[in-house]
């Protein structure tokens, strides 16, 4: 594809697991950008953290050769998303224009079926109305809905940023430039492990990275066609 089609973009994220050091900046950045609620110790101990993005950590091997693997896990924005068709009210749907898996918060009635059907466990649910005691609510991002209780939520690839960049580009009559849109996680990432871009742009960074030999998509065999491409970590063995 020589020309970028402004009507049709395919947003892709590449996560280089060899660069990722698990520091957690993405987790916090995501929460701050997307008005993700904090739930406190008891709720988290009971598996009710609201993290849209979590860093899955595995132990590999036995002492003293034990090793750690970090893998940031978020909504994979599947092309064939299992969460979408099961929603009775189209609260989660596929955007043809963005090729994204959209969650429409105000449409959600909270059946939580999508979350059950997500092989990546990428969805979180608003178990309660969470509070941001004043003035903590001042930092809530006006571009992102504050979800109330009973609503499913998940990573959106920071669609508000995509929308803003696209609108700006449209007003200026040009395509969105590579690197112009950065979700909060990619923006914060100190090791540049997370790269975001448009697959349709043949010169984009993601395109170049994704074609790496190390590239794989998580649980690819399920046919979900995720749009997060991981680059595997290959540790040197002594």
């Amino acid at each position, binding site marked *: 594809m020589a020309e970028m089609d402004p009507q049709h973009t395919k947003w892709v994220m590449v996560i280089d697991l060899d660069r990722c050091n698990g520091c957690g900046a993405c987790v916090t950045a995501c929460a701050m950008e997307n008005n993700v609620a904090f739930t406190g110790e008891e*709720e988290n101990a*009971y*598996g*009710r*953290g609201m993290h849209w993005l979590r860093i*899955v*950590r*595995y132990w590999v091997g036995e002492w003293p050769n034990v090793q750690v693997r970090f893998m940031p*896990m978020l909504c994979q924005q599947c092309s064939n998303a*299992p969460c979408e*068709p*099961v*929603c*009775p*009210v*189209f609260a989660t749907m596929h955007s043809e224009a963005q090729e994204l898996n959209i969650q429409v918060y105000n*449409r*959600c*009635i*909270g*059946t*939580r*079926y999508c*979350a*059950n*059907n997500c*092989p*990546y*466990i990428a969805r*979180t*649910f*608003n*178990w*309660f*109305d969470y509070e941001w005691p004043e003035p903590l609510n001042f930092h809530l991002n006006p571009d992102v809905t504050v979800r109330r*209780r*009973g*609503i*499913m939520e998940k990573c959106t690839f920071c669609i508000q940023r995509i929308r803003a960049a696209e609108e700006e580009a449209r007003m200026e009559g040009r395509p969105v430039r590579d690197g112009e849109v950065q979700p909060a996680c990619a923006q914060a990432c100190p090791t540049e492990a997370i790269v975001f871009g448009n697959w349709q742009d043949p010169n984009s960074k993601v395109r170049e990275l994704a074609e790496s030999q190390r590239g794989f998509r998580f*649980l690819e065999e*399920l046919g*979900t066609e995720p749009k997060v491409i991981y680059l595997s970590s290959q540790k040197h063995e002594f």
Partner: protein
Amino acid sequence: MQETTLPAELHERVEELREEHLLLDPRPREEMNRMVLEAMEDVNREYIIVMTILGLVTAVTLFGAWGYLMSKGLGLAGIRRPIYWGLFIVSFVFWIGISHAGTFVSAILRVFKAEFRRPFTRAAELMTTFALAGAGLYPLIHLGRTWRFYWMIPYPNQRWLWPNFRSPLVWDFLAINTYLLGSTMYLFLPLIPDLAMARDKSKGWRKVLYTILSFGWRGTEEEWRHLQKAIQIFAWAIIPVMFSVHTIVSWDFAVAMKLGWHSTIFGPYFIVGAILSGISAVGFILYMIRISVKNMRYFIRPEHFDALGKLLLIISMGWAYFFFNEFLLEWYGGEHTVQEILRYYTTGDMAPVWWTMVICNILIPWLVLWNKNWRRKPWVMALMGIIVNIGMYAERYVIVVGALSRNRIPFDWGWYKPSLVEISIALGTFTLFFFLYGLASRLIPLIPVWEVEEGHHAHGLKRIGKGVVKTVAELE
């Protein structure tokens, strides 16, 4: 009935048969009417106390807890990431299962002309309706935003949005509504002549009520013709609807990309399970009616429990067959997560529940129900009803909660602990069920008198040589 032609030496045998079979033991219609009406009007102190307690408990444990849940959020339930469905869905599937009782008894047994069904078709159909009423609450209770449930209904609206007909939940919604409406109508149609009877025989507010409800039924030839035709159509049509309901409920799980759920056998497995729990619940309810409602010992006899017991045994075997099918295939496969799920079921934290299921659904029924004497004891069948339903509740718990606890990312496995609110609501539906049933037992004739009388007409005795046997004339 032509017993006058029977020789006197067979008298004893005839008496025996008569005692055994309701349909060989006719009483005048007036008397049966009186018995049924007496049972309905028997609003004594114990009844009022029990109903008050049931009503209050339901109001608090079900509706109170539900209101609290809605006002605070679903976090009050024990569900969590990744076990997004818990006791609510377990109870939902359970009650949908119970609801198969009435249809099975009054449709399948009617189609196959199993005559023993006659006195308790209504009792079973009432179970269907009330179980569905309970079951129907759960999809609402379990919604994060119950107040938006109507978005699942297809109706033109300012949003220009329709429900997603590709979602199993919409299938569910359609199927449950079809089934609820269908089974309620199916309950109501044969009830009309009995309501007309009650209209003729009662006074005061009851008369007003039955006058409205009986729609001016007179029992003319046309009315009977249309009614019988309709009942026939319903009996045939409601069977596939019933099958579809529990199949679709099973598809809620089976279509999901979830190991432990994604199984082709879930449809029939769920149906058999539903009938198993439904039939056993009928046994329990009949026992309750027999001991607590006036004059019911005449209508509900050991023969009925015996017949139910035999059915139960067969269905338990059917269930075991499907269960084994499902288990074996998963056991044989090599999937890590499935292996872990099975390990979790059989020896892991879920083992107590899983083994309860196996013992209650297979072991105990098989040990008990082969014995005719035990089958004929109402309390044994009542006990079986409780045991099998505990087993079936456990089965749903294992399927819903167990499978959700394990997924393809071990980092995100989970464990689940039902919360007080959840348990309260789950118990609340039981009290709601019994409350509604208790209410119905005093408001509508529990026994379809005209059907029993018809049965009396149809049944007779025939002497063959020195013996005497029951005969049935095909009236329908």
